[in-house]
């Protein structure tokens, strides 16, 4: 049962992520800012959810499912590798640092708020 709850949450999260990523392609900035935003916001929401919600099923749906499916590690590293192969090393480095720093910072903010 738990696996179904997580899977459904992940589907909703992934759907929203995909809509946002597709929409962001219309804005031509040579930096994967949308994935950055998604990962930071998702980490922030997971922090909030972890701190505020005690019901186990809801936690699985919103936390492990929705936030887990909304944020992505695969696309993030894929974009890093793209920047690397395009020899945009500085952007690659900035994207790497910002994602990890702001992601962890976002989660901590969610916990504290």
């Amino acid at each position, binding site marked *: 049962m738990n696996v179904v709850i997580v899977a459904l949450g992940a*589907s909703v999260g992934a*759907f929203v992520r995909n809509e946002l990523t597709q929409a962001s392609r219309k804005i031509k900035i040579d930096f994967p800012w949308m994935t950055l935003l998604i*990962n930071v916001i998702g980490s922030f929401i997971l922090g909030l959810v972890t701190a505020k919600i005690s019901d186990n099923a809801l936690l*699985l749906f919103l936390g492990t499912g929705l936030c*887990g*499916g909304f944020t992505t590690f695969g696309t993030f590293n894929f974009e890093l590798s793209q920047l690397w192969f395009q020899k945009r090393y500085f952007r690659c480095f900035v994207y790497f640092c910002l994602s990890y720093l702001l992601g962890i910072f976002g989660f901590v903010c969610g916990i504290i708020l």
Partner: protein
Amino acid sequence: MKHLISFLAVFVGALFGGGFRYLIGLAFGGGSGFPFGTLFVNLTGAFCLPLLIHYLHDRFELSDGLVLSLSSGVLGAYTTFSTFTADVFRLFSGGEFVLLGLYLILSMVGGFLLALLGNYLAAFLAHREFWGNKKAD
């Protein structure tokens, strides 16, 4: 119609990806101790995504809808950034600094290196098959 198909592709893919991530987490012992589950899904996902996009897509002439389902859906939901940050916070507040350092290095450096490796392997396989076919001609 096209929008409905891309919606279903991502939604159904993520059902499997998210469910799989949860089951792997359970198999590695759930939410306490060193987060082997999150590390495993993130590293394997980071390796598979470039392989899918730069090799499997062309090799098996997968449709764009299927590639979207597998990449944004399955692998997108299979890997996770937010659980990673939650694990980092949990290890830090538990005072597990050695495990935290290990987890950070393995995730951050490992994820990036495996994504590079996935790209290299995709290029290697595509190249090998291209020249293999040339010789057969």
